[in-house]
């Protein structure tokens, strides 16, 4: 009995313990951008302010799920990076708090309109346009013409060569769907999706997977955010980036302060700092090719030149709302995904 007791105690002791309450001068950052960018942001903020940063990197969907699960007792303070939709969703569910930063007058209009559409609960920190990229080797090997417009992708010779993510699982693909609806109108937009469906070889789960597959030579054309495609090209894969001629939609990478943050003051300091020119210029040091939201910040020379891209007037308020999203996704499920390929 005695020996068992000791085993029982040690095992149970190792099973439970608690952590609670807060301490001054530290910040828990949930980061949804790429790993090295997140690291750089966290370390630079520490250097700039002396506040200790605990950074955890997860994809935006994962972070959203975590913040929602933790909402009774929030553990995070600031959520930086990641596509805007989950940030808007968090705002809609009151998981994030409203804050008007004094830095606002330095920002592009699109960053502020992101904030106003969410009752100031989130703000734009970078943007990236939707487009596609193709593997130049594979295109040549299959004697395919170079595509340059959205409608080019409907041509029958591309059958089995196009990949995009499943809008049910990926924010990127949902942005594609919503962009097509806004670009061509709802009826024609869905006709486009149906035509595209015939050429699609796979709907991937993750948003950037199509272009990664293209980089590795597993797929010819991938519909993704252009900065993801640029990253493939810069990494050394034979990928060419295309800004579709009809114009295109875009995402706004966002930042929010979590409702009930334990270190609210530090969170606001980070928020203001992250909107500054210095902080946004850090993107140049890592392979991040998005357009920063501060008007004074620089954009990487490899990034797609936004002046040559026709951007649609993307309505984030409407298409970011959960009702509209549910409706479009259901329509896509019923009208498009069930068609034979």
């Amino acid at each position, binding site marked *: 009995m005695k020996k068992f007791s000791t085993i029982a105690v040690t095992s149970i002791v190792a099973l439970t313990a608690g952590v*609670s309450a807060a301490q001054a001068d530290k910040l828990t950052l949930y980061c949804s951008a790429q790993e090295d960018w997140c690291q750089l942001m966290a370390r630079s903020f520490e250097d700039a302010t002396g506040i200790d*940063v605990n950074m955890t990197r*997860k994809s935006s969907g*994962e972070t*959203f799920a975590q913040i929602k*699960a933790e909402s009774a007792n929030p553990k995070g303070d600031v959520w930086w990076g990641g596509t805007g939709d989950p940030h808007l969703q968090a705002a809609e569910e009151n998981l994030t708090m409203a804050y008007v930063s004094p830095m606002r007058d330095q920002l592009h209009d699109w960053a502020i309109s992101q904030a106003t559409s969410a009752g100031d609960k989130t703000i734009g920190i970078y943007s990236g346009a939707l487009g596609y990229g193709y593997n130049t080797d594979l295109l040549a090997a299959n004697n395919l013409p170079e595509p340059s417009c959205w409608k080019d992708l409907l041509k029958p010779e591309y059958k089995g060569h196009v990949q995009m993510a499943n809008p049910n699982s990926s924010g990127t693909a949902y942005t594609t769907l919503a962009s097509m609806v806004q670009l061509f109108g709802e009826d024609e937009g869905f006709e486009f999706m149906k035509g595209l469906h015939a050429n699609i070889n796979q709907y991937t789960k993750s948003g950037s997977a199509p272009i990664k597959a293209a980089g*590795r030579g597993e*797929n010819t054309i991938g519909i993704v955010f252009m900065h993801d495609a640029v990253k493939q090209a810069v990494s*050394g894969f034979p990928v060419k980036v295309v800004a579709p001629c009809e114009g295109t939609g875009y995402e706004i990478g966002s930042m929010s302060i979590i409702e009930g943050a334990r270190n609210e003051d530090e969170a606001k300091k980070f928020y203001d700092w992250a909107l500054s020119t210095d902080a946004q210029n850090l993107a140049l040091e890592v392979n991040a090719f998005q357009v920063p939201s501060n008007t004074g910040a620089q954009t990487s020379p490899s990034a797609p030149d936004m002046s040559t891209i026709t951007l649609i007037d993307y309505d984030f308020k409407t298409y970011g709302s959960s009702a509209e999203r549910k409706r479009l996704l259901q329509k896509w499920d019923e009208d498009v995904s069930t068609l034979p390929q």
Partner: protein
Amino acid sequence: MIFWIVAGWVGFCILPWYGVEDGFFAFEWLIDGYPFDEDYAPAAFLIGQGEKLWLAPLIIPLITSLFALRRKKSDPLYAKILIASGAIGFGWLIAQGFGIGIRGFNFEWLMALFGDLGDRQFGMGYGALLLASAYLFLFTQGIAARGAINGDVFVVSAIGGVIVIVTVFVFLPIAKMLLAAFITEEGGYSASVFASKFFDDRLWGLGCMSGARCGAAWNSLFLAITVGILTTVLGLVFALVVTRSGFRYKRALRALTVLPIITPPFVIGLALILLFGLSGTVTQFFADLFGVQPTRWLYGMPGVLIAQTLAFTPIAFLVLIGVVEGVSPSMEEAAQTLRANRWQTFRTVSLPLMRPGLANAFLLGFIESMADFGNPLVLGGNFDVLSTEIFFAIVGAQYDQGRAAVLAMVLLFFTLSAFYAQRMWLGKKSYTTVSGKGDAGVHPLMPNGLAVPVFIAAGVWGLFTVVVYGMILYGSVVELWGVNNTLTFKHYVTAFSVRFEETGIRWTGAAWDSFWTTIYIAAAAAPLTAAVGLITAYLLTRQSFTGKNAFEFGTMLSFAIPGTVIGVSYILAFNVPPIEITGTGIILIVSFIFRNMPVGVRAGIASMSQLDKSLDESSLTLGANSWQTFRRVILPLLKPAILAALVYSFVRAMTAISAVIFLVSAEYDMATSYIIGRVENNDYGLAIAYSTTLIFVMLAAVGLLQVLVGRTKIGRRTQFGAKEQT
């Protein structure tokens, strides 16, 4: 008993009641305001200062338990006092823990009854923990004193302990999560929500009969059955080669079969893509040879099937090797003496005796395939399975936790059906072969008709594994896998560089932080997993008590559910008091213990059902109690099972992904989540270099464990190629 009463008093009066913020193993509280500071005070001091008065009733059962001290065990009052004290104390502890939360009362009716509390609780700490265990074990001792399980204190306490921890760490979080299936968008509960999500065409559609796509549920089921059968057959093949043939390089074969479980899952997927993908080496070779267009045949069912079979065969092998070795040669010799030829012996004696192993191996393969997430993600193509659907229902563009819960229920239903089918098949037959009686002899060789296909299968599969791992190793030393094949060591340097300075070694590599955390967590989780698993297996095979089936079912639950669901459910359940462990290393350890425990249980059950009960009985007759019997008789005979449980839990703790994604924090980042981050960022070289390093580390660890645990000699057998065996 005295031990637990003292422990209870210590927990109440000396140790800090609430969790210490700096972490479980930080002892700063000793010098920082203890025992009067509210954050560190023991319950007795809190009450003395007029704080947290709801803790006060906890002292009553502690006092009443003292009355049992002078009484004899046979005194009916002794049992009654212990049961009452334990039950009331434990009950109140739980009730106050769940009733009063972070914002005062947790339930509206409590609020209505007592008004606003105006106070809050934190997560429970050492004191609460110790007091809870004290009450629990006082209670079980009372039950034992009343004569339950022949008054066996060890067995009753073990059952009580396992039930409590399984309830807390398995039932509670999963129930919380699954409840989401019935929640409407407005936050109410409704069965129709469940129905509409359950009867979704994406789940049950049968379109694949007519060229379109099938629902995820059918896909998963079909895949899991196929994988279960394939891995069991291959596992048996390897086990036979190792135990029943004159094959020379058994060690190499063993190492080879262990390789896939020590591999971070998506690495196999990547290697398969580079071999068989559209631009894969093998695909291109055959395309050129036959002049056909390369296709994307790998993406979908074939790819997932290959990857999962590769990944899960070792688990079947680990379960089967113990069982195949355990079949007593004397039985086989008896058959041969009765003029059965080798084939007849194998078919009518050896094979039927391996049934528990076969059934358990199939069950594990089936469940693993159901819950596997990494391979379908990388290779699935348009072949949707439940586990990935669940993941993207939670983190995808839909944000539909209800759908995730419904899918998880479907998955759970399949798993449980498999579990019951396995039990039906095994039936109530006896598979005991290791008895206390003389057990000399030699395993017969396989019959020729069997040996040839077995060797071919083992050879082909072994070669395939070698090629896949060759690719992985190669991938870690080239500049950019598949594009720029210049040899380089830079990925290893980036990840694992060290600098020697005057102050000592500085770990400058990018991967060290997550590497050490992973090792530490895995090393902490492995022995605990094996212990909990084997004790459970012992209870299940050797003791009979009411509710045994439900108990067994409960221990399998956490294994059968995909990691993602576990991850989210752990956050939901353990982010608020009374158990507040999110963001700590402990939540990782706990999740590993309860996710991997079932393998220990399965391996233990398979081995223990071969050990004759007369061994226990003779030990008990000779005056040993059940703990001594377990310790001195059963445990030594279980060494293969212990090894399997240890190895498996250590390795899984290092390679698991899906649950971990939600549980890692800045301080406790795991290797796999770091690797996934690198893959997302196109750093394939670094990711693969890191994975390769992990593979070697785990190989070393497995070898070390093998030496530490030692091999067991069942009976006085001489093996073929005895030198390699021992």
